[in-house]
């Protein structure tokens, strides 16, 4: 396969899967929209976890910032969706930029706990600003204008899903491009041995800040999509628990590969949803066991496992 073929192939995956999902689950588009938005968020998380090698429990800070910013923008300024997305990106990016200045010298457990601290502080502040944010009751009353002035957001979530899926698709293509670029290659080098990169004259602090801000911007974008399609923003968007949940999705899918983020979000949400539907009381036992199994039997995550399986099939076909 040539490079162009491969790129085209990769580009086709998301649209094909999106159509397939709509065909299989025609009456659950609000749920599918949730999956697309979560996948976008997990994708942005992969930039921090996979590309920068930093485990974080604070990614929701940027997601929540994007969600609240987009919600407030639509309530008080303009209910136009696309500019709302830009507001979300800016809010997420700004929160990331400011916290990166504190965070980007730390790593490991220290980094993890600092992200927790930042997220908790933001959470408390938003909780206390009830007049603006609605506090724990949530921020509600969001009514979006039609997309492009033409397409109405329906309560079935049809538009919501396609809107989220297209954004996800574009961001995915963009990140694939970036991953292969000098910036992306440097990111991997910084992750492997930052000190070595400085000895070559690379500015690792600035690079990490840039990467974190990029990731924060995308997380903010996901937050804005969520605010616009759900029409309510709750404090849960800012919680450490939610950060942990998306981290689990990413690790389950496989880190550092982008595909893993998509697969992790899709599979986790699907299994969670259906396990909880089959047994609303005991599904956690099932999910827990599944995570343990994945660690034991798929050391490179779902995507790694998938890849290995495909390779084995190919080898089998050849011989």
């Amino acid at each position: 396969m040539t490079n162009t073929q491969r790129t085209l192939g990769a580009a086709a995956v998301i649209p094909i899967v999106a159509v397939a999902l709509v065909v299989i689950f025609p009456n659950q588009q609000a749920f599918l929209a949730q999956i697309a938005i979560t996948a976008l968020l997990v994708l942005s998380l992969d930039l921090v976890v996979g590309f920068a090698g930093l485990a974080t429990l604070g990614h929701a800070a940027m997601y929540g910032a994007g969600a609240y910013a987009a919600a407030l923008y639509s309530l008080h300024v303009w209910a136009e969706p696309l500019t709302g997305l830009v507001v979300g990106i800016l809010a997420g990016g700004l929160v990331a930029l400011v916290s990166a200045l504190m965070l980007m010298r730390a790593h490991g457990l220290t980094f993890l706990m600092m992200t927790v601290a930042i997220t908790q502080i933001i959470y408390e502040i938003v909780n206390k600003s009830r007049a603006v944010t609605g506090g724990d009751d949530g921020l509600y009353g969001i009514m979006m204008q039609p997309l492009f002035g033409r397409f109405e957001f329906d309560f079935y979530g049809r538009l919501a899903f396609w809107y989220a899926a297209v954004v996800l698709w574009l961001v995915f293509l963009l990140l694939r491009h970036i991953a292969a670029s000098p910036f992306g290659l440097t990111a991997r080098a910084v992750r492997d041995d930052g000190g070595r990169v400085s000895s070559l004259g690379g500015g690792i602090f600035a690079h990490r800040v840039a990467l974190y801000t990029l990731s924060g911007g995308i997380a903010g974008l996901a937050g804005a999509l969520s605010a616009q399609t759900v029409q309510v923003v709750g404090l849960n968007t800012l919680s450490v628990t939610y950060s942990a949940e998306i981290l689990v999705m990413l690790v389950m899918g496989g880190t550092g590969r982008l595909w893993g983020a998509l697969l992790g979000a899709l599979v986790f949400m699907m299994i969670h949803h259906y396990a909880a539907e089959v047994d609303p009381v005991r599904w956690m036992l099932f999910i827990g066991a599944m995570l343990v199994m994945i660690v034991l039997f798929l050391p490179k995550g779902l995507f790694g496992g998938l890849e290995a399986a495909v390779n084995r099939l190919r080898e089998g076909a050849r011989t």
Partner: protein
Amino acid sequence: MNNLLEVRNLSKSFGGLQVTRNVDLTIAPGDRVALIGPNGAGKTTLVNLISGVLDPTGGEVMLDGSKVTALSQRQRAHRGLIRTFQITRLFHSMTVADTLRVAAIQKNGMTYRFGWGGRSADLIEKSVERVLTDLRLQDRRDNDVSLLAYGEQRLVELGVALIMEPRVLMLDEPAAGVPQSESHIIMDAIENLPAELGVLFIEHDMDLVFRFARRIIVLVSGGVFCTGTPDEIAANEDVRAMYLGEAS
């Protein structure tokens, strides 16, 4: 003559332990200086001080006549002061070619490019190719560095430094772990460097030191014990007793 690198009265202590004592040294364009001395004499520490990994407790480092003591390792690297590490430090998730590419990206200030393409990208590919050829690593270009034998990793470590086109190059035991039979690849590569480059290298292999160095600095207990041409050093009884032993 203008000195590329000048070190004045450099000192370093860890707690109560003084590891570098009032070291003076200069490197001029074209210099090939060997730094030798017993284990723990402070050779690596001196390179760390010059390259900016460690902060000195006293003294100055000058590059091209201007003080760089306050500059970071990164800034010094930008001014052409490049070093290798005694224990290889490579990017363990990368292939040989990518490792070299990373270095070339830093060299050419392309860190914030979000795509390839353009003339500088060709430049990078060309320099990567050249270094691979010089070090006879073409076969290994797409191998993961972490899976190479140690000796080959040493070659890549050197390649990373070479691609930076340094003006002053400091090598910490570049040939350690490389078989005698193959150390000439490394030495050839260094020999083929532009003549105006200044090279400081640490080595315990006296064959290489005497073959390659034009000047030798002997460091003992953190201080400069003596300096001289290879012949002078080889003839020095004290150095023989303390360091060289019966060999050579």
